């Protein structure tokens, strides 16, 4: 089953390598991994999607904690979570079909970010399944190129992944 982990790490050279190396070393497959800044200076936030058993995920979380640069790991799998993915899709669009595509863009609340004579670039954000179905309806028009960011996730409500470690992390930063 797919698990979504949010991991807060010190923003230092080589930390991504340590995390990736851990997955390889312990035989885990990463479905998706995104890295970026968090709200705390000096702390990066990773969102990982891993397909594995709950027992193995429990092991993985403990291994992540063993990395000296890992500050906090949250398993959001069973929480009500906002999950977002961003995709840019370049699709063939001559004059005749452009209107059709624009209607689909409207329905899916996507956005056209580039228009050329025979193509469009569409940007869409949303949960994984929404993007999947949008890609499916665009396929017949001819997808020239596509890029997706991977999932980012955040638990609903006022709690923060960082709340427990906020103070110490700020000190280190």
């Amino acid at each position, binding site marked *: 089953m797919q698990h979504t982990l949010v991991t807060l*790490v*010190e923003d230092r*050279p*080589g930390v991504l*390598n*340590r995390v990736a*190396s851990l997955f390889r*070393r312990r035989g885990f497959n990463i479905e998706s991994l995104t890295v970026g800044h968090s709200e705390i200076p000096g*702390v990066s936030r990773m969102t990982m999607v891993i397909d594995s058993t709950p*027992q193995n995920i*429990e*092991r993985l979380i*403990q*291994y992540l*904690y*063993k*990395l*000296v*640069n*890992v*500050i906090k790991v949250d398993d959001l799998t069973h929480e009500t979570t906002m999950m977002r993915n961003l995709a840019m899709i370049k699709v063939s669009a001559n004059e005749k079909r452009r209107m059709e595509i624009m209607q689909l863009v409207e329905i899916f609340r996507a956005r056209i970010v580039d228009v050329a004579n025979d193509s469009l670039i569409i940007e869409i954000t949303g949960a994984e399944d929404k993007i999947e179905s949008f890609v499916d309806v665009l396929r017949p028009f001819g997808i020239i190129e596509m890029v997706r960011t991977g999932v980012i996730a955040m638990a609903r409500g006022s709690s923060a992944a960082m709340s427990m*470690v906020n103070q*110490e*992390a700020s*000190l*280190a930063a």
Partner: protein
Amino acid sequence: MKKTGAQILWECIAREGVDTIFGIIGGSTLPIYDAMEAFPIHHVMVRHEQGAAHMADGYARATGKVGVAMATSGPGATNLVTGIATAFMDSSPIVCITGQVPSWFIGYDAFQETDVTGITLPITKHNYLISNVEEINKTVRDAFYVARSARPGPVLIDITKDAQTEEIEWEYDETPIQMPGYRPDYSPVEGDLKQAAKMIAQAERPLILAGAGVLHSEAMQEMIAFAEKTQTPIAATLLGLGSVPASHPLYLGMMGMHGESWVNQAIQEADLLLAMGMRFDDRVTGNMATYAPNARKIHFDIDPSEINKNVKVNLALIADLKITLSQLLPHLSPTDHSPWLETINGKCEESAQRDILNWPDTGKLHAAHVIHDIWKYTEGKALLVTDVGQHQMWAAQYYKHEKPNTLITSGGLGTMGFALPAALGAKQGCPDAEVWVIAGDGGFQMTQAELSTAAQEGLKVNVAIINNGYLGMVRQWQDLFYEKRYTATPMVSPDFVKIAEAHGLTGIRVTRRSEIEDAIHKTQECPGTVVIDFRVEKEDNVYPMVSAGADLHEMIRRPHPEQS
């Protein structure tokens, strides 16, 4: 005051309490070595960097302090790898310092450049690359703290040549260590203690499994007090030997692949296993699916990632063992388990007849005799350092340790060539100890060059080579599982007596049991290192044995004297 990076490095190392380091100088550590003389630190020059890492490891295991190894960039650093991996698998606190090419060369494949932090990433507890003199002070303090705290382990610091030579205005910075991602928690949860006490009170056939964590946590007294109060017998892992005196009435012996049959049977019959600082390695469990099927399990360990990794447990106390046991003890009431202890004792007596020590003397020289006699004539007081293989298992079975930290052996990684350098490190750290190396003819030759180090340093260790002309443990597997096809295991060795003499040391050859006692006494009296070449029976096997993957109670027993 103005200081160079090299001077700052030494001052920080000295402030960690380091008095000895093991290493080899090279191009990328020249500035460090050039600054060394001014500091009260003794440098042991080794013959191969693997030896430096093993010496630091042996020093750490014998003294409980952090051992330090130093190597230059490139091949110097890569030669450390086996020693670092050995320390990592056995949770030994060492700090390795490697020189690196100047920071502006990194990434350009400069002469003797290697990505050492990359190479050692999966075999260190943590590692650091210092490319700026300003980072040295904090990094060294963090590195020693990480190496020695919680579950100990090796830490590597790679330091560029420019960071060594750069000069800054500097005062030692002692601000408390703050690592947001490393905050070990040593205290057990009160509710878990109560739960454990309840499970212990309910048990009729409890058994303590003592691992290296008992020694790391220095929880020996607490564990024995626990055992005595609850009348719980204790079995030890290989690395846990010595955590309880071998002569203690509640001590059963070693568990696992070459453990005693009554110990393994006790594990299989127990209704409660108390795993203390051990990690249910495959060499102690046998087939996991049938392991201790009747037992509830309580796991005491400082490392959360060990819980439910190999064996699923009913309760985990993730904390320092010494603290946990001292808090748990008041929750326990004195118990009597005499029926359980009698059951186990009955099995011991039957097994004793099979023990080679109780066989009639045929004049043959068996390794078991050699080790038994070393135990006898050192009065069980030696600091024993073994290599890896058959002799290691015989040493574990026949040398009875009464004191903690008197057995140093490569357990997890099983590194041949470990013994001689680890023993030199141990001797350096404990100059008053009577240090004995037990090694095979195969493993000894892997690091035999360190005899030069022993000679140069005037370090006295006593080396017993159990010489059977084979890579014996592999030959045993070929015997049992490959229809005696002895491929690549027979071995022609040099004359070890002459090897010793070539180093200005003493060599003795022993071919008969009657010669053992004299040889041991002569060795003890000799001021320098002595190498004894024990020409033992070539094709003895180590028994009992649980075949890889077999059920723990399905042991190949020692042959019975009447049947052989």
